[in-house]
């Protein structure tokens, strides 16, 4: 097994996981999808290079997977300037102002998508097709094997989502509801940087994100997961803090 020791190695694994869902999206959309993809990649590269050069940092190239996630989750009818503006906001405010990926606590793609929905009323996100859900599974397996998705988060999230949906509808949801959620769950909610960093915190974080997503489903599954990722990500440092306080309290009681 390869050991992940450099940020760019993690970016490469992430891009590898994104290739099948991206391929599905592009075949579903054709030329319009390509235009959006090219624009997203260009914008993300520009910001990445500007900030890493200015800081004399090693580029982690992480803005590229963020651009790919955004491409998959936006509608092909979105105008390019809207995409550019939203992506710039997401990358700069969600990631680069903190010092780049790994220094902040938000997922840049989730910030971008939330910005799109808020800033341009009426903008909808792409509702994922079942094909996209299936295409995400190999990537999810790869990320789980590489340790870049925490199984605790995924399991807790599935639990939270099921409990929340069952409470909403009174009946447990079917596969038809779960499949479209897989992409956003894998790449937005289960992002290791945005997730809680303690083991107990990961259970809480995943469960909270699942409940929130179930609560927001009337907005559409994609929007629900974006907001769930964003809110749970904002709460993650607090969750970690609570968990650590509880652990330290136990330790000093024992010692």
């Amino acid at each position: 097994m390869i050991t992940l020791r450099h940020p760019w190695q993690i970016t490469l694994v992430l891009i590898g996981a994104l290739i099948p869902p991206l391929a599905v999206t592009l075949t579903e959309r054709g030329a319009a999808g390509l235009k959006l993809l090219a624009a997203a990649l260009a914008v993300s590269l520009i910001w990445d290079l500007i900030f890493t050069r200015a800081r004399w940092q090693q580029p982690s190239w992480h803005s590229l997977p963020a651009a790919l996630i955004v491409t998959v989750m936006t509608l092909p009818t979105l105008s390019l300037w809207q995409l550019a503006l939203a992506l710039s906001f997401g990358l700069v405010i969600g990631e680069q102002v903190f010092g780049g990926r790994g220094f902040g606590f938000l997922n840049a793609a989730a910030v971008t998508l939330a910005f799109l929905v808020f800033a341009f009323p009426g903008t909808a996100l792409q509702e994922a097709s079942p094909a996209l859900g299936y295409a995400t599974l190999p990537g999810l397996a790869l990320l789980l094997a590489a340790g870049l998705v925490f199984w605790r988060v995924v399991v807790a999230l599935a639990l939270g989502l099921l409990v929340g949906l069952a409470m909403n509808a009174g009946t447990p949801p079917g596969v038809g509801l779960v499949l479209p959620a897989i992409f956003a769950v894998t790449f937005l909610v289960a992002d290791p940087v945005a997730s809680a960093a303690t083991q107990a915190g990961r259970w809480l974080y995943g469960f909270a994100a699942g409940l929130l997503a179930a609560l927001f489903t009337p907005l559409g599954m994609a929007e629900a997961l974006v907001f769930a990722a964003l809110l749970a990500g904002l709460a993650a440092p607090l969750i970690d803090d609570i968990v650590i306080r509880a652990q330290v309290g136990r330790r000093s009681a024992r010692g």
Partner: protein
Amino acid sequence: MPLADFRLGPRIRAVGGPVGPLILPRSVALLGTDYPGLRVELRVREGDKVAAGGALFCDRKHAEVAFVAPAKARVAKIELGPGRRLSALVLDLVRDDTPVEAAPLTLKTGDDARQLLLARGLWPAFRRRPFGQIPAPDAQAAAIFVHAMAGYDGAPDPAALLPQFVREFAEGLRLLAHLTHGPVHACLPVGLTLSMPGVERVRIAHFPPRRQSSMAAHHITLLHGPTRDRPVWTIDWQDVIAIGRLLTTGLYAGDRIVALHPSPAAAPRLARTILGASLPDLFEGHPAGPAIPVSGPVMREKQAHWLGRYDTQAARIAAPGHSLMHRMFGTPGGTPRPILPHAALDASLPPGVPAVPFLRALSAGDLDGVERLGGRDLIEEDLLHAQYLCTSGTDYGARLRRMLEMMEAAE
């Protein structure tokens, strides 16, 4: 194998097999970096001849703690840093074939045991926690932990080697029991059972030979708890055998079994050599390999010239960062890289220390955070796995040492 073991990280690949003949290096050294905070009072001058086990210097604060020559030698060079801190003391070994008479020692009291180890140079085999220094001669340990596991990939495997030295090991353990009123824990890999009569005071504990459960800090956390008010001492299994040999023969044993990795491609092998051996001497006779000699675990990746006092492996590695991918993607930057959480990091620190928050606190120099998350109970070597697995490339060991110095000064 229980399923829960997977959470403890991958199995440690220890080195077993036959032990080669003694490699007698031309020179050996005692290094200040192995003894943080030590100020010395010299007992020899450059050019002096010393016998095996003869005193070289002692701790200026505790003159009873003697540091001795691991073999018959001539003092070649003494380098002192500011404040009489030892930098390095280099010895040129003298080949010595005269047979020495072995006479077993008998001890009557616990004080005898202490005096013996102090005077005969085996006291520095102990390191105390918190802070990782050699314990004071009159200090009391709440417990002693014998680390009889391969802590890192490529270390000599006690599961394969320890059965050959059961008698000396048991003798050593019996002496340790005299040093503390608390328990003596011998931590062995699962599956290694030794028949050792007469060591009833010693508690044998078995741990899976995996990344997290092979660390001394893991054993201390599970069997003892915080060390702040109840300090513990740790000692390596080979040092316990050396104590046993001192008791049975009356002679100082300055040789250790080390695993040699001449190159990443070649199979590692075990050999006997002298403490502090010169690494170029150890690799003499091997075909020219990669350029950088490393003392201790390969993942330390720090160029060294001498075998460290507490190291039981030595390797030669290629200079890191020269692959095509590194040149394409990583430009050499001065600013720190980010800490990107991934699952392997979680099992890289002892239980109860949340890896990512702890490493973030260390990077940020957050003393309160480090202490709150359990940093007081750790020493540099506990962070080696995390340092290797973390994307930041930060030297966490050096940062922890600075934090420990601050905690110690505040006491």
